């Protein structure tokens, strides 16, 4: 994940790193200490496949046990992000 283009200034929709535990199939089961109640939707975004740094994200819209409805995604398995999870307004 690249740095925010404006440095320290918050950007709209910019993804925030988040700790997610996933099951064997790669679906999130907990965000931090909060369990995932349901996966509402799942989709894949692939872009810039013609560049040396293609973008590939597997998005999940999930409902947490505390009632929050959030969207998380996982970066591909290649470094430097190597499977890191992010939360994003989508």
């Amino acid at each position, binding site marked *: 994940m690249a740095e925010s283009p*404006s440095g320290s*200034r*918050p*950007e*709209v*929709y*910019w*993804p925030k790193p988040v700790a997610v535990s996933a099951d064997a199939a790669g679906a999130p089961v907990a965000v931090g200490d909060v369990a995932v109640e349901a996966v509402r939707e799942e989709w894949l*975004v692939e*872009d810039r496949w013609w560049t040396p740094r293609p*973008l590939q994200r597997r998005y999940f819209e999930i409902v947490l046990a505390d009632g929050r409805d959030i969207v998380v995604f996982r970066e591909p398995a290649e470094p430097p992000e190597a499977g890191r999870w992010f939360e*994003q*307004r*989508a």
Partner: protein
Amino acid sequence: MIACALIPRLSLTSALGDRREMLRAPVAVAPEPGGPQVIGEASGPAEAFGVRAGMRLAEALARCPALVLVAADPVRAEAIWEGSLARLERLGAAVEPTRPGEAFFATEPLRGLYGGTEAVLAQARRALGAWVRLGAGPNRICAHAAAARMRARRGPTVIAEQAAKRVLAGLSVSVLRDRLEGEWDGRSTNHAAPRREAEEAACVDSLERLGVRTLGELATLPADAVADRFGRAGLRALRLARGGEEPLRPRAPREQLACELRLPEAASGQQLEHALGLLVDRLLAHPARRARMLRRLRIEARLAGGGGWRTETTLRSASANPERLRLALAPRLAELPGPATTLRLRALELGPEAGEQGALSRSPEDERRNRVAEAVRQARAAGGRDAVMRVVEVAPGSRVPERRAILAPFTEERDG
């Protein structure tokens, strides 16, 4: 019958000026400084690459890497177009301008003056010149199609009522893009209009993708199915495809009240402010003002580097106070993208003749604006200039959310 007056690619030819030979190459009007990053009108060779007006700049360049962009000259295009509209109005026509280079007017009220529809068109042609295309039909789409088909040697064409259905059936659904979008140009006052406009453009794109290529094919679809799939936008498209029409909404003819100053050398900064001060004085001394106050003004400039620029200011209350006008207009000069060679000040709306009188109570909108401006000042005092930013949508449909919008500095005059 509705008549259409058409000047194809007016914005592009105005921007090119005497470089008309460039029309043989892929060329398009560049986005206006400070405006959305979409291109303006494109030449025929550019359209052959799939480039069209309103397309995002990045997409246009991806489709046609050799595309040449020319600086927009909206001031010149508008001057040409305004002249044409005024000539039509002098004939007695109640003109509905939809976009620069395209206007409609009803021929019925003029038939008593000039004869039949053909005679009205012939009169209009004499007034406008042979380079303006004219046509007439029972609705706007047919009239536009007739004007677009006109050839200089053969004169204006008229599509008769009986032939309208056949002509409509053969037209591409892409003609709806102009009609659906055009219905909101300059008329919508509510905030839902841009979203509606986008829905309607998306409706035409979807129709094309689904293989509905002509208005005839669209007209045969059941209304309930179109409503289910496309909602209100689809029903409007269907009504137009079946020959339905909304009444013309002609503009109110207005007086031209403008002053121009040629600058001896390309000017900027204080020189420009001084020139603006002179223009304010001249406009206030203009005999056509007849002691009325000014409510909405436009500053126009011809740029030393080519092209033109314009910006509008609406005063919270109409005024004829030179000091107040200068204070309202001078900050706008900071938006000028380059040194100017000509500066023009135009009054777009005039207020009443009476002297200024403050309102006993402010309108809720003024109250809200003042509160927002005060909140912005306070937030900036506490958190610095970046404490208040404006969200600018740059690619609202992007699948990658962080590309959809960026944060830009919040300006109190424009955003408050």
